[in-house]
Structure formats: structure tokens, C-alpha cells
């Protein structure tokens, strides 16, 4: 069976100006939004209010979460606390509610369940779950990830490949983060994990295409870089589509059936998989062409030197 194209001959490189233009435009929008609007950080990062309720009877947590959401408390964390009728809610207070008691009262009002009265046992502010050090360490981690990629790809391939791969991957991560800024969707730890997995997915995808580029550069001697890149993308196209399709399927299932808490992470991964797939074709390969990558770049260095030595 064969659903996805073999022996396709799309001229992807012809679109390079358009595709790189779109990529840069998206980057500008993402970075612009990140600097102007910033991210809407969730409770994990900002802290908020913790409210404890004691119901008379057992409570359906999903139902309660729905009620709170309807009352304007988006993404409240609802947990049982010891017993199934003791509930603890962590949420960000509504605008203008400066003290915790006020938030507590409105949560109590929103959480009213017919025939199962509740009382408020505590309302307090809570600090953030992750400290400032996470942000600092996160930045250091990303720098080291990029550095590791750079080094490995430079050794296994060539520095032009390394730069192109990293630019493409960073492009994906920034756009994915930018998406959360533009839409004003909540950015929590799970979204962060989702974006990090996008980074892994994106680099994986780019390397697979680059690997074929390297193979073709070495095997197809007479062809121009333009044609080599086009052929490589076309040859790996069926694999790229199948893998992305399968990955997307899993994440879509998570998005539609995984409940509200998983939605953020699933969303970041959906965007990431789409952008990551497109960027290895439309960003990474055009960048290689733009950097003037040729067959010579991939030849073993020693041979080059030997060639040079033989010259009169």
C-alpha cells in the first residue's frame, strides 16, 4: 500500500525566497509578541491563591472544575485533599481581588452544588511552585543544547549544516512559544515540556533530511547543490509525512480526549510538529543553499589538503 508520494519531483528550492520570507515574518511576529505582550504565565510560575473547601458529600472534581471555569477562573487546579469531600483549589484571583478571603468567597459561590453544601476552610495566597532559578537554568540549558547540537553536527556533517539545523530548530521553538504569546493562552510547566519536546522533534526531523543531503552530495557527483537538495527532500518526503502524520495523530488524540490539563501541552506539540516538519523542508534546506553548501564541504579534510599539496 502506498498513500504518500514516491518519486515526487517538487521543486522545493524554487520557493526558497518565499518560504524563508514567511519564516522570517513568523519569527518577527513571534518575537514582537513575546517582547510586547509577553507570556501569560500560569500558577506554577506566578503563584496565586489556594482555597480549601469542605463539602458534606463526595464531589465530582471534573464537574467542579467546569463550574469554576464558567465563573471565570480559568485553569484552576482542583485536587482532593485527604478525603474525597475535602477539596483544595489553586487559582489565579480574578482581576481586582486583592485579598485571598475575597477570592475564597467567590470560589465558594462558584462551587455551589445543589444538595451538597460546602464551607470555606481556608484561603491563602501561595507562592510560585518553581523558583526564579528555573528560568535561569532553563536559559543555560537551552544554550548548552544548542552548543551540543552545533558541535556534534559540525563533526558528523559540517559547520554549515550545524548552523542551518540550529537556526531551523530555534525558529520552531520561538514560533511555538510565540503562538502562546499571540493567542494569550496560559503558559505552564507542561507547555514548557511540550515546547522542549518540539525542540527534540524538530532537530530529529532536520537531521534525517540532512543525512540524505549528505549521502546525495557524496553519491551524485555531477549535480548542483540546488538539485541535490531538491532530490533529498523529495526522497525523504514519504518518510517525513508518515512520521509527522503518526506523531500528529497521537498528539491530536491527547488534545481532543485528554482533558483540559493536557490541552496546553498537546497544543504546543501540534504546532511544533507542523512547524518542525515544514521547517526542515522550507527553512533548513534553503538555508543550506543560501550558505553555499557544496559537495566539497563534505569531503574529508585530509583529501582536500592532499589535493592542495599536489598543485604546482
Amino acid at each position, binding site marked *: 500500500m502506498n498513500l504518500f508520494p514516491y518519486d515526487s519531483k517538487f521543486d522545493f528550492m524554487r520557493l526558497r525566497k518565499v518560504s524563508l520570507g514567511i519564516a522570517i515574518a513568523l519569527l518577527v511576529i513571534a518575537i514582537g509578541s513575546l517582547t510586547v505582550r509577553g507570556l501569560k504565565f500560569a500558577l506554577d510560575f506566578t503563584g496565586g491563591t489556594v482555597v480549601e473547601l469542605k463539602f458534606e458529600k463526595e464531589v465530582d472534581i471534573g464537574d467542579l472544575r467546569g463550574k469554576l471555569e464558567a465563573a471565570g477562573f480559568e485553569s484552576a487546579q482542583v485536587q*482532593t485533599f485527604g478525603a474525597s469531600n475535602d477539596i483544595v483549589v489553586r487559582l489565579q484571583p480574578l482581576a481586582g481581588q486583592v485579598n485571598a478571603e475575597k477570592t475564597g468567597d467567590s470560589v465558594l459561590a462558584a462551587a455551589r452544588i445543589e444538595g451538597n453544601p460546602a464551607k470555606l476552610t481556608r484561603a491563602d495566597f501561595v507562592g510560585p511552585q518553581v523558583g526564579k532559578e528555573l528560568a535561569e537554568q532553563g536559559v543555560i540549558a537551552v544554550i548548552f543544547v544548542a552548543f551540543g547540537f552545533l558541535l556534534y553536527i559540525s563533526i558528523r556533517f559540517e559547520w554549515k549544516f550545524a548552523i542551518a539545523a540550529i537556526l531551523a530548530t530555534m525558529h520552531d521553538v520561538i514560533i511555538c512559544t510565540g503562538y502562546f504569546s499571540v493567542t494569550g493562552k496560559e503558559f505552564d*510547566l507542561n507547555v514548557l515540556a511540550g515546547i522542549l519536546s518540539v525542540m*527534540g522533534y524538530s532537530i530529529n526531523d532536520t537531521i534525517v533530511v540532512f543525512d540524505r543531503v549528505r549521502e546525495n552530495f557524496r553519491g551524485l557527483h555531477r549535480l548542483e547543490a540546488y538539485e541535490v537538495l531538491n532530490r533529498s527532500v523529495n526522497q525523504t518526503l514519504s518518510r517525513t509525512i508518515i512520521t509527522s502524520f503518526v506523531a500528529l495523530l*497521537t498528539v491530536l488524540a491527547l488534545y481532543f*480526549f485528554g482533558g483540559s490539563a493536557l490541552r496546553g501541552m498537546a497544543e504546543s506539540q501540534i504546532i511544533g510538529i507542523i512547524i518542525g516538519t515544514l521547517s526542515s523542508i522550507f527553512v533548513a534546506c534553503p538555508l543550506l543553499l543560501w550558505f553555499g553548501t557544496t559537495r566539497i564541504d563534505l569531503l574529508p579534510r585530509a583529501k582536500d589538503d592532499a589535493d592542495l599539496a599536489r598543485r604546482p
Partner: protein
Amino acid sequence: MTLEYPNWKKAIIFVVLAFGLLYSLPNLYRQDPAVQISASRGAVLDETIKDKVQGDLERAKIGFKAIELSEKRLLVRLLDGDTQLRASELLHGSLGENYTVALNLASTVPSWLTRFGAHPMTLGLDLQGGVHFLMEVDRKSVIEHADERLVDDIKTTLRDRNIRGTAARADNGVLVTLRSDEDRKRAASEIANLAPGVVIEDVAGSLDSFPLSVKVPDEARIAAMDQVIDQNLSTLRNRINALGVAEPVIQRQGAARIAVQLPGIQDTAAAKKILGATATLEYRLSDVENASRVMEAVQTGRVPAGARLYYTRDGQPVLLSRRVIAQGDEIVTATSIIDSDSGTPAVSIRLNNAGGSKMLQVTEENVGRPLAVVFIERIPETRMVDGKEVRSARIKEEVISIANIREPFGKSFLTTGLQKAEADELALLLRAGSLSAPIDIVEERIIGPSLGRDNIEAGVDAVFYSFLFVMAFFVIYYKMFGIVTNLAVLLNLLLVVAVMSLFGATLTLPGLAGIALTIGMSVDANVLINERIREELRAGTSPLASIAVGYEKASGTILDANVTALLGGIALFSFGSGPIRGFALSLCVGILTSMYTAVSVSRGIASLFYSGRKKLARLSI
């Protein structure tokens, strides 16, 4: 190129499969809610206690599954979370101060499995919940401590400036009494320099007494309290890290509280002890001049000036110098070791520069004199007064060792005179820093998963169905090779779970994202192989050679793609914290297993199907 697959490689596949099954199996056993009782120093755990516990539970009509007595603890397995809380409260009351009662989740993994070292993965707070402690900083003691320090500072300043007067703690501050109005004015300006922000006022006195009130404003108190809580927060974080608990949540709650959440099954009794503990050490010289007056001090209560009365562990009274040479907060590192000279447990201690130079100076001047180590422990107590809980704390100070100074020493030295467990605990506490204010556990609960059980069930269902769909897709799309792919991917999943269980990793939602990603990469590796084989077939290569060439060529690509991702994982693991680490760990483990299963195992399976058939006309791919 041939498709032959050596027998030893096949054997390895079976060993790996067996390993995967064995070590992922414990994850199928659900945990029992339990109450764990452990004995403090001096108390014993025996059949009598077991019978008492059983009796207490039966009288209160609390159903339980089993009561297990082991060397270190008594474990009561209960039916559900509700009875667990009730049982814990009941036993806490009836067993008294000498026993620590803690909530726990007890493993139900059969012993034949644990004998292999197989344990279930701990699920993180988001997926499973865990234990929640609410801790309160002792506000009164923070204020007292600050005021005492202010009194000391004022006294020193007055002495340095040759102003005659006294200072003592008073309502919300300090009362300084001076001899003349002129002195009072000078003192007021000195104090204003010493402690900016305090409110200084003259108070009506008598002919020869000119009192001055120094009051600390509320804002300054709140700021000081904030600072104390922040310090305690980081100390607690250090302590929990030292305990080795993965993925804890430590956050401030309200004005004077800190909430600590530890995921899943933990030795909560130990955690409790470490979290709330304020044990520390002080080094003091023995007061040899007054040594003969010890008995007098014990009998009359009159302690000679410059000395303090202490007792050793076995109850011997001893007089020590009032001056502290070094104390807990000057300790940089502490490790529990076995002293090679005496063969007894000891704590090896290194002081900071200031503490080290003080220690060197004192020991140089006092060779031959005894040096005492005082162990200070704060034990929180709860009593019921008029039906209300009243919290207080008892400070226990005892001399754990007195030894003559044989030669001067500075930064590094040993402290002996402890039992093994105490040495371990003390080293952990000293290393993790002392709390800047005493902190008590005011509440302990088992909490549900923060993502909500409904969410997790929905998520698991979603992943399960998508997995089924993907597998069906592969079988339809690649036929025989789809089955090979599915087997390899399933084995990969099994291996990830097994390795992570073996590591004792904590599985959180970000961790699951990591696993999902590696499953994706494992799928990708198989797709790469299958597409290569198809490519070779289209190029006219014979079926068997196509398989061999396909695997060969795809392996290089898979290696590059996976090593790059692995590098990313390693960097994230070393520099990330908390949830990022969980993600990175599962990513790294998953990449390693997926490289093996996609390249080696799937090839083994393929050769199992095809290598015997020399004249294969068509491939089912």
C-alpha cells in the same frame, strides 16, 4: 550483505525482553494507603506496640488490611484514604511523643519481585498526588530572636561608645535605660545609626534613670519575616534534595507558612523528621576553672559567671564556657563517616573561613583543655488545652562529646559520640543548612493528583487509543514489516518503563511527554527503515538484499538523529531543574532504548521471519 543475524544477538534480545518484563511488572501493582509508625530514640517497636495499635484500631472500628512489624517500622495497611487519615489521627494521639506516626503509600509488589530490585516508578504529584505538609514558621521566636540580637547590638554599641546604661527586651522592641539625659541623646543617635528604621522615643523616668524606648515598626517586622521565610524555603529545598525526593513542590503559603508536597510513596516519617528538624551543633570550651563547682551549681541552681550548666547523654552535669566557638550556621559541609581511629560513627565537619579561624585560635590557646560538642534539638509538642490544640516546643540541649584538644585544628575536624543513624541525620541537616527560624508541621494530608484523576484517565485512554490506531495503521501500510515495527515499538515502551522503574524515576506529565517523544522517534526510526527497504526494492534490488541494505543505510541516519536528540536530553538533564529534569531523563532513556529496539531488535525479528528463505520473490512491505 546478508540478513544473517548471529545467535548471540538473538540471545541478547531475549535477555532484554526478560529484563523489560521483570522490571516493568511492579508498575501493575497498586499501592495501599497506609500509616507508618516509627520509634524515636529510646522507644522500641515490638509485639506489644503492634497489639496496642491493633486494639486501638478495632475499638475505633477502623478497618485495616494488615499490620506488619519490621525492624524499623510498623506498617498498618488500610482500605482507603479516608480511614487512613482517621487511623493516623487516632494513633498519633494514643502512641504519644516517642513514636512518629506518618501517612504512607505502601507497596503491594510481591517480595519475589523486590528481591530482584524491581520497584514501581513513583508517579509525580501531578499524576498521583502525594503527601502534603503545611509548615508554619514560629513567628514569636523570629521576633524574640531579632529583639535579642538588637539588645546585644545596642549593648555592644553603648560599651564601645562609653555610654553607661542597660538594655533589655521590652514590648515590641527594646528598653534602654541610661544615667543622664545627655547620655540618652547620644545613645538615641547611636541606635538610630545602628538600626535604621526603628522608632526611638524618650520615656518618662525618674531622677537617675532616663529610659529610651526602641520600637521596631510593623513593616520592618514583616520584611524580616519575609526574609526568614525565603531563607527557610531554600533550606527546605536543600534538605528535600538531599533526601533524594524527586519532583517535590515547595511553595510559600500565606504570611508565615510553607507548603511542601512530596510525590507518591515516600518514607514520610523520615521526611517529616528532616523537614521540621532544627538540630544543630555548638562547640564550647569546658569551664575548667569552675569545674569543682559543678555539684554546687546542680544543687543550688547558681551557675558561676561565664559558665553554663549542661548535661551529657548519660546524665552527668558539666559546666561549659558561655562563649560559643562555632555553631551550625558556620558549617560548610558535613559528612557522616566511620572514624578510623575509634571505629565509631562520626560526622566530618568543615567550617567556613570565619568559623575556621575562630576554631584555630581557640584550639591553639587551649591545647589540653576539654572541648565539648553540644547537640541542640528542638522538639515540637502538641498538647490539648481546653479542647484546643496548643503548639509549643521543647529545646533539648545535651553534650554529645567532651574530648581534650590534642593539637590545634581549624576548618576541618571530626565530631564523635553519635550513633550511626544520628550521625547520618545530623550530617544531612548540617549540610542542608540550619533553618533561620524554627518551623513546625501544622498539617499533614494525602492529596489527590493535581491534574485531577479524571484528566489522567482521559489522557491515558486517549494515548491508548491513538496507540492502537497507529499500530493498525502500520499493519495496514507495511503489512509484515508493520508487525515488525509494532513489536519493536512495543518492546521500546516496555524497556523505557523498565529502565525508569529501575532508576527509581518519578513519572510526571512532562516525563510522559518525553516518553511520547521517544515513542515518536522509535516510530520514526522504523519508518526510516521501512521506507529505505521500499526504496531499494523500487531500485530493483532483490528482496533479501533490500532488507539488509535498508537496515544498513537507515542505521546511520537513525544514529545521527538520535545522538543529536540525546545530546539535547543530556544538556537539559544537567542544567534543568524539577520538571525539565523529569522530561530530560525519560527522553534520554527512551532514545537509548529506541536506538536499540529500532535498529537491532527489529532487524532480529525481520531476520527471524526472512533469513531462512533463500528464494524470496516478494516482500510483504
